[in-house]
């Protein structure tokens, strides 16, 4: 990008951020630390970790997000579990579960499940994949990356795949005495997805991403 064409305000802000950082927890200002991969910077006042320079952040994020995407697709396409009681059986997939809830007038719960365990995790996978690929490739970032990463951070607390899985395990214990339950491939895919998403959500190096975006706007 042609440096001369950048607005002076952007240049001023970028210079400010090249020299200084602030702790998001206690507002203390520090000189920007020069970190090597694997090192972390702690605030000298409140001892929070301000940022961690993650090792091979882009590569790991891409790998884990591709795995997450595959697991997400298998979790959607195979039966989740099968229940039998008195000769009657009922086999459901994750999507079936949401549509059963919806058609039985449990709209609010159906929407919560669709959002927290399907839509938000999928959005997060795709957004982080997009950012990881851009960083690893030419390293060119811009407005779309800023918006994507901000959105990915915003939905982070609302992606509840792991909480859903714990809920499912509890419900299995409850139902175990009432009926025979067989777990399907989607159950194991969801379990894998939960693990991969939990690790993968932490491998992206936030400060590197924002610093990269800041330098190229």
């Amino acid at each position, binding site marked *: 990008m042609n440096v001369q064409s950048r607005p002076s*305000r*952007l240049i*001023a*802000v970028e210079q*400010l*951020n090249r020299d*200084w*950082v*602030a702790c*998001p*927890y*206690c*507002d*203390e*200002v520090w000189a920007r630390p020069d970190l090597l991969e694997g090192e972390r910077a702690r605030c000298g*006042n*409140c*001892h*929070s970790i301000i*940022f961690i320079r993650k090792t091979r952040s882009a590569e790991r994020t891409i790998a884990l997000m591709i795995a997450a995407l595959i697991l997400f697709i298998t979790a959607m396409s195979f039966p989740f579990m099968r*229940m039998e009681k008195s000769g*009657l059986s*009922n086999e*459901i997939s994750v999507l*079936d*579960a949401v549509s*059963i*809830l919806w058609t*039985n007038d*449990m709209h*609010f*719960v159906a929407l*919560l499940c669709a959002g927290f*365990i399907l839509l938000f995790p999928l959005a997060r996978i795709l957004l982080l994949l997009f950012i990881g690929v851009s960083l690893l490739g030419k390293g060119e970032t811009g407005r779309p990356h*800023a*918006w994507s*990463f*901000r959105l990915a*951070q*915003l939905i982070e*607390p609302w992606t*509840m795949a792991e*909480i*859903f899985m*714990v*809920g*499912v395990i*509890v*419900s299995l*214990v*409850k*139902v175990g*005495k*009432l*009926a025979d339950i067989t777990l399907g491939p989607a159950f194991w895919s969801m379990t894998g997805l939960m693990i991969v998403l939990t690790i993968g959500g932490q491998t992206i190096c936030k*400060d590197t991403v*924002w610093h990269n*975006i*800041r330098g190229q*706007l």
Partner: protein
Amino acid sequence: MTTTRELGWALCRSCGTLTDQPGEKCLVCGASTEIRKPQSLQYVWAFWFAGVLAYIPGNVLPIMVTDSVAGTSPSTIIGGVISLAHHGSYVIAAVIFIASIAVPMTKFAIIAWLALSIQMRWKLSAHRRHIAHEAIEFIRRWSMIDVFVVAALAALIQVGGLMAISPGTGLDAFALSVIFTMLSANSLDPRMIWDASHPGEEKHVAT
């Protein structure tokens, strides 16, 4: 020891960009860059009361209704915990008790304590309050478990005529309570915890 406020700067809470013109839209990510989140405590209290209000019907009303040949039986959160313990599933009973009763109660208490300590300028250790804030950030989502338990049961147990499980009114209230409490914790600007411990900052009134 200098804060961004003393320098006349502000930090974007979304992307960590510093700016020397507080109040402008963050040039990097587009979020607002206030010195402190405006009306932070008002948002905290509004969501806190909404969360507490929704928590009451969430516990009093049945969260799950079981229809079977034996009749219709509604069950509340605490009823579910007791029946699990009664059937010998102590671990699961403990998980549900912790996630649905202990965690929400603790969250209400910690958020109220943090908000009051900021509002009333209590002379408390900022470090201790900081740890309390980190703790609620960590546990805040886990109260959703019970909602997913009922959702999974309701989706699974629909055996034509024999038996059906559906969520009760209490479940919607409980889910709303969890969402409101998450929003309440989210509205608390952690930097306010440290404001009183910075010398020369007493003149700033937290709102």
